[in-house]
């Protein structure tokens, strides 16, 4: 599915990712935790191809293709989905229009016919239901005037509609109360199957109570310093990052 080898990447002149290795197989859920400034969100942006995030060295393949050979939208069409930490508003463009264009662009890329308006509407309604978004959100402008929680749910709604093969969730739990968190987690869990993989970036173990990871990785100073199963997240919750060694005591404080 996704194979990251010795990735180095920088933002402006600061190298953030410094020799990161990660393999994600179909159906797996990988959680990435780590202190502030470790490079967690940067990893999501580098993989999705955001401008300003430059790859210095390393290789990444997605479903067998060289990721860095592809434009942002090609990566998306090839199954990479990023759920944003701070989804931006697009005033005047309805969620419905936006997602219809988006779904059909992806279908076109796969050589499939565009969805009919009726079929799309059916799927969109279903996706809204799964994340408990009222249907009038389809008519509203993309993220326009949405609350923080609504924006996060809207991201998951989009993920459900696009059926990606690799979902990167960038702090989809931040700013959510416990009920909203459960809704987001349920939405994600409903999409888990043997083919779809997830990278869940989070600060808090709490989310992982609801989305059970197969692996937990601790990212620090731009590389994975420790990997384990779900119990590693609990350890972080209880002890902070101090157990990683003296150098992390400060950043975790």
């Amino acid at each position, binding site marked *: 599915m996704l194979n990251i080898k010795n990735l180095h990447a920088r933002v402006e002149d600061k190298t953030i990712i410094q020799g990161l290795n990660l393999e994600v197989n179909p159906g797996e859920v990988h959680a990435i935790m780590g202190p502030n400034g470790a490079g967690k969100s940067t990893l999501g942006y580098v993989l999705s191809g955001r401008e300003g995030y430059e790859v210095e060295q390393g290789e990444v393949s997605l479903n067998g293709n060289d990721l860095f050979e592809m434009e942002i939208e090609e990566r998306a069409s090839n199954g990479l989905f990023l759920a944003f930490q701070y989804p931006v508003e697009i005033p005047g463009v309805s969620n419905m229009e*936006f997602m219809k264009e988006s779904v059909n662009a992806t279908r076109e890329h796969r050589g499939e016919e565009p969805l009919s308006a009726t079929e799309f509407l059916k799927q969109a309604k279903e996706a809204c239901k799964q994340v408990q978004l009222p249907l009038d959100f389809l008519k509203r402008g993309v993220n326009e005037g949405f609350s923080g929680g609504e924006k996060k749910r809207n991201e998951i709604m989009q993920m459900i509609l696009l059926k990606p093969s690799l979902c990167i969730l960038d702090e989809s739990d931040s700013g959510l109360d416990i009920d909203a968190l459960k809704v987001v987690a349920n939405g994600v869990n409903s999409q888990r199957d043997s083919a779809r993989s997830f990278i869940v970036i989070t600060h808090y173990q709490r989310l992982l109570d609801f989305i059970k990871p197969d692996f937990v990785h601790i990212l620090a100073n731009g590389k994975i310093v420790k990997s384990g199963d779900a119990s590693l997240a609990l350890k972080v919750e209880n002890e902070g990052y101090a157990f990683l060694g003296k150098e992390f005591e400060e950043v975790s404080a």
Partner: protein
Amino acid sequence: MSEQIEQALDRKYEAGFYSEIESDTFESGLDESIIRRISEMKKEPQWMLDWRLKAYETWLKMDEPEWAHVHYPKIDFQAISYYSAPKSMADKPQSLDEVDPELLRTYEKLGIPLHEQEMLAGVAMDVVFDSVSVVTTFREKLAEAGVIFCSISEAVHTYPELVKKHLGSVVPRADNYYAALNSAVFTDGSFVYIPKGVRCPMELSTYFRINEMNTGQFERTLIVAEEGSHVSYLEGCTAPQRDENQLHAAVVELVALDDATIKYSTVQNWYPGDEDGKGGIYNFVTKRGICHTNAKISWTQVETGSAVTWKYPSCILKGDNSVGEFYSVALTRGRQQADTGTKMIHLGKNTRSTIISKGISAGKSNNTYRGLVKMGPKADGARNFTECDSLLIGDTCGAHTFPYIESRNPSAIVEHEATTSKVSDEQLFLCQQRGLNPEKAVSMIVNGFCKEVFKELPMEFAVEAGKLLEISLEGSVG
């Protein structure tokens, strides 16, 4: 990201071709004899010629206005030809079958197959090619409802009383420099008359095309809506791609009598000039309507073309309870300059006006909103709401807003809101992350920005306007 936007904006002007049509074109230059010849070509009555000559005298005494936020070399009015008509028009065709096939092909290439238009009931068209009206469709059907829709030249002959009464009643000859010039040399345009209580059974539309080189187009449109009547009118414009600048100086007058409604929509796509600002149309237009008691005039415009635009469709809200609306989308790119907006003159009691202006600037262009809201001393309880939004694409363009408010009535309420935003990297990234290419992303964001205005356009036109923006932004065939 800005590089991608630049590419996305690298458009082609689709209407830029020239048609090989034999024309009778006046030599360039302007003096009294030219005006006499225009009048003669049109076999006009003496009163019309006198009217033109008076306008010419006035014009000679006026100075070219320089207050607009636009820059262009001085226009040489002696280098322009003031009349050009296809030879085949010498005897005006009575129906589409008699129209020169090359002319029909021109309109087909522009996406306006006249034959098809005639079949598809719904829109009646007047087609103006350079200085003359080529054909007007659906005349019989309109006549049944008592609606008059013909070229202004024809109206001068057939309905002289109506023309005499209303021509220059809203935009006087001496109104401004270009209006005076137009009054002296106007060649053709449309005339619409809706009788009392009649709801015009179909959309009326005029399509303007400048074809000949060094020719100015000076059209004159007059729409009169009698008491309680209703009409929706659309105009579209294109011109060939040339290195020289061409002048288009039109005058549009709307008269909405008591309880009448006029909806006037424009999709303007004159040739904007090339990347370096060479060529393109100078679009200096005066559009104004007068509203009597309870009447309503609504202007909607989508402006994507012209090298320089100078245009302020306005409403004089004379009657009590009358309503004026102005909805505008102006897109500038390359080196285009637009100085556009509206004037809402509130004279009557409880008059209301709404102004929604959306300016989109890209490339090295400059986009200016200039608007006047005036509340007269008798305009008790009058209200205006203005919303003026600018969207910047890239960082080499400019957006400017000059709102003027004059209130002489303490009970009048004027509200003004203005915003400036940019197509942000975050928005583009979100769209691309969802699988959309940058061109599609930009056009979607821009269309979203314009939504409030597009929903005011008649349905067929709204689709067309959306497409035009997309073409303007994409550089691909829509």
